[in-house]
Structure formats: C-alpha cells, structure tokens
C-alpha cells in the first residue's frame, strides 16, 4: 500500500457521468468489432433476426448489450470491499483468458497424454537448473559485490569488467558462447552444465549490483562500531552487515529468481530437456504446437506465482525480525 490518504475521493465508478461515457465508448468499441457472426449473434437472434443478415443494426444491438453488461459489472464491483474487488476482477480476467485459449479449439486429450511427462521431465529440469543457478549466482554476487567495493585495483577491475560484460551481452548469446566456445578451448561441456554456467554468470552479474547496493545502504556507523570492538572485516561483513542488508537484498533477488525461471527457457536452444524444449518438440510430430505452448505457459505462470508467494513470506519474515 502507498501512503493512505485521509481524504478519499469518490471512486470513478460511482459517478454517473463517467459511467455514461464508459457505456457510450463501450457501445462504439463493441459495435466496431462486428460481432453479429459470432456466438453473441446467436444469443441475440430473437431480437435481431437472422444474425448474418442483421448488418449494422445487429452489430450495434450486440454492442449495446455487451456494453451494458460490462458497465453494470464494473459498477457492481465498485460497491464491493477491497478484497472482493480484487478476487472478482482476478476471476473475471482469468475466465477471459481461458475462454481465449479455449477458442483455439485445443485438443485436451493430447494435452492430457503429454502433461505428466512435461511436469516430471520439464518442470523438474527447469526448477533444478534455476535453483542451482540462483544459488551459485548468489555466491558469485557476494564476492563480486565485495570486489566492487574494494580499494584493490585488480579486484575492482575484474569485478567491473565481469558485470559490464555479462550484463551487456544477450543471455542467448552467452549460452551459445559457453556451449560452443568452450569446446574450442578443448573442454567439451554438457548442455546442462553449460546452461547452468551461463545463467550463473549472467545473473551473478546482475545480483552483484543488488548485493553491492544492499551492502552500501548500511550506515557507516555499523562498520565503525564493529571495527572499534576489534571485529575483523570478514566477521563484520558476515555477522553485522549482510544480516542487515538481507531485507534489502531479498526482494530484488526474488525478482531475479522469477526472471531466471523464465530465462532458463533459453537453454532449450542447446538441447536441454526443460519445459520450453519439451513444449516445442512434443507438439511437433502431431502439429499440436498451440496445445503444448499454452500448457507450458500455464506451468511457467503457476511456478512464478508459487515463487511470488514464497518471496512475500520471506520478506515478511525479515520485516518482523528487523522492525
């Protein structure tokens, strides 16, 4: 929540003028779509007669009905308390999306036959690669952040070169460079380690900046108090600075993890059997691309939502212990 103002303006949905304008705009927009040859035309047959021959009259009539339903819906939702508003709008948007997918005429039998393999193989590989990469990337990030804050020229140069390079190159290119480039040096690398390495290096570079900012945000007085008691650098960092920086580091790191979960789809180009790879290949043989892509999309979405929930739990945990 932002700062809650004490003076509350009337919500727009309770202003008749605004709603009248919305109704009018709705009629125009819905009429413009020319919906008389769709399922809506069938519903309106008693009023407009044979839908395909109703022409402009049919379109406007359908537009009017849809617009009235739409506006009434919004006005009614406007009366509900916050929680129910959120819930209802979510449900409606979700239904709209699902009906959009449904209109593709998907073959659900086909999806059912493949989904278990997608989860057992694809989701597992995706999660495994992401989890290993984010763990390694965090370690890279701590070292990188300390190096970037260091007065040692070598450390700073290497760290800033690293972050500049890996933040400056497309991740897809890094995946190719590592998978195809390392064998040129005589070291043949498997697809999964190559993917993990690319994700680790790329996200390590982003997270270096997150960790650096987190460490820098801690008041200088904390360092002074620690050092004045004879704590060494490593002890101060580990027991005093990082624990205080964590509440600042966790939210963007959670963001990075969600982004990585989806960017791990890029390692499908080197043949790792993760979710995206399976989505592209499983549908190939039967020309059922849409089924598999939509299934994979929904799985990605569900995974991200789980991570969002976990992230907010962790944030709340740190908020309560640090006041």
């Amino acid at each position, binding site marked *: 929540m932002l700062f809650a103002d004490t003076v509350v303006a009337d919500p727009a949905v309770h202003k008749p003028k605004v709603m009248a304008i919305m109704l009018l705009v709705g009629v125009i927009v819905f009429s413009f779509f020319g919906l008389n040859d769709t399922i809506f035309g069938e519903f309106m047959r008693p009023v407009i007669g044979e839908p395909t021959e109703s022409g402009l009259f049919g379109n406007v009539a359908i537009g009017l009905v849809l617009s009235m339903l739409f506006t009434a819906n919004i006005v009614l939702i406007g009366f509900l308390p916050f929680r129910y508003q959120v819930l209802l709008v979510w449900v409606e948007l979700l239904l709209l999306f699902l009906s959009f997918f449904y209109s593709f005429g998907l073959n659900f039998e086909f999806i059912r036959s493949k989904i278990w393999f997608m989860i057992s193989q694809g989701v597992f590989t995706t999660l495994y690669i992401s989890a290993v990469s984010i763990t390694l990337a965090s370690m890279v990030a701590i070292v990188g952040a300390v190096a970037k804050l260091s007065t040692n020229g070598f450390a700073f140069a290497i760290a800033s070169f690293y972050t500049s390079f890996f933040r400056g190159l497309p991740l897809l290119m890094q995946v190719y460079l590592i998978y195809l480039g390392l064998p040129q040096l005589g070291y043949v690398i498997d697809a999964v380690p190559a993917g993990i390495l690319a994700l680790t290096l790329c996200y390590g570079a982003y997270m270096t900046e997150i960790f650096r900012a987190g460490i820098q945000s801690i008041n200088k007085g904390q360092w002074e108090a620690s050092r004045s*008691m004879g704590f060494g650098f490593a002890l101060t960092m580990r*027991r*005093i600075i990082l624990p205080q920086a964590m509440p600042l580091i966790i939210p963007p790191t959670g963001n990075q993890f969600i982004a990585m979960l989806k960017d791990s789809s890029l390692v499908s180009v080197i043949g790792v059997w993760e979710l995206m790879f399976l989505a592209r290949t499983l549908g190939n043989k039967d020309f059922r691309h849409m089924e598999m892509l939509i299934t994979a999309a929904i799985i990605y979405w569900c995974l991200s939502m789980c991570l969002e929930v976990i992230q907010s739990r962790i944030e709340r945990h740190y908020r309560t212990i640090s006041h």
Partner: protein
Amino acid sequence: MSDPIIQMTNVNKWYGDFHALKDINFTVNEGDKIVVCGPSGSGKSTMIRTLNWLEAHQEGSIVVNGIEMHQKMKNVDEVRMDVGMVFQHFNLFPHMSVLENLMAGPMWVRGVKEDEARETAMKFLERVRIPEQADKYPGQLSGGQQQRVAIARSLCMNPKVMLFDEPTSALDPEMVSEVLDTMIELAHDGMTMVCVTHEMGFAKAVADRVVFMDEGAIVEENDPISFFENPQHERSKNFLGQILQH
C-alpha cells in the same frame, strides 16, 4: 607512575588540503578522566577517533596501550579490543537483541564461552540499570536506554580506556542525565575515560583535566576549576561565554 595508556606526540592530520589536527600532544594516564571540548569543527571528534584509529593520522606518533598505530600495523584489532568507544548515534546492531549486542564482542573476538558472556552482559546491564530490556531490540528502546546499552556493550569487552564521542548530543534533553549518571558512576569506579562533550556539569564533576581545542589545535589544557574560573586564552573565554550564558 606506569607508562601512559595513550600518548600522542606531534600528531598532524589533513583531509586533502584541510589541516584537521595540528601538532597535537596529549597524554592519558591510567585512571585519568579527560574532557575534550571546543566549537564544532575544531577537530575534537577527529582527535578522539584517531585514538583507536577509526581515522588515520599522517604525522607524529600515537601509542595506545604500548602499541604504536601506523598504516602497516597488523594488530590494530588488538588495540581496538582494549579501547571501548561510545558514539553519538549509539551504533547498536539493530538486528540483534540487547543481550546479543552485549555478548557479541566477548564471544566473537575474545573467545569467551556463551554462558560466561551472558553472565557478564547481565552484570553490565544491571550496572547501567536496564536489565529488564535484555531481550528487546535496540529499535524498541529510548535514545537514553540505547546509549546506556552502548556503554554496557563497550564495558563487556573489559576495556582499559573508554572513548566517548559526544555521547549525549543526539539525545532528547530529558534523557541526557541518565546517560551522564552512568558515565559519572563509571568514572567513580576508576575507569580511564576520554570524553568529547559539551556537558560542562559532567566536566566539573569528574574531569581531572579539560582539553580545549579550536581549529585543529589544543589551545588550552587545564584542571576543570582553573579552566572554568580562569580560562587562560581568549578563544576559551569566548567559547565558555557562549555555552554558559544560558
């Protein structure tokens, strides 16, 4: 008399072109209670911070507890363990409870066992009269309580000398006295103390010597009665006139 705990000889310090400390000569013997005062920007905080080398000096020598402080020293932490420091803004560790704040130093750098550290911590919390706050977090305490915890935290390290850098300047007026009382008790128990403060009542009550600084130099060093009754220097007179006129 044994060797002094702190010996500054011809100490000079610059921030870029700014001459922050000018030829400081200053000695602290065991049991001394010294109050350092002076207008803001006079270098008194800088001076006290060079004593445990939170600030580096560039010329002259600072010997603390028999160890000379210099850029290549390996054992700066050994010096710091024996020199307690209390800051203007307390600088307690906000993610740790009061008790953990007090136990951290002894356990992490002195290698004291947990039970013993807790016992010591409770002893000093009782001495600063807030044992009931042991399990709270610093953010839940008043400013005066936080500063008393900070004093107790330093005491837990069993220091040979305590440095106070304007310990009451950030406090609300009604909390100043509870911190000063703690410091006065500490002085009566024989602790060696160097205090940067404007609390002239405190200076009169416990100080053996008052050091007056201006523009990076020690202008006058005298016992408190002489300093307050009969300041030798024009700048000391001006300063005292300004802070005592209210």
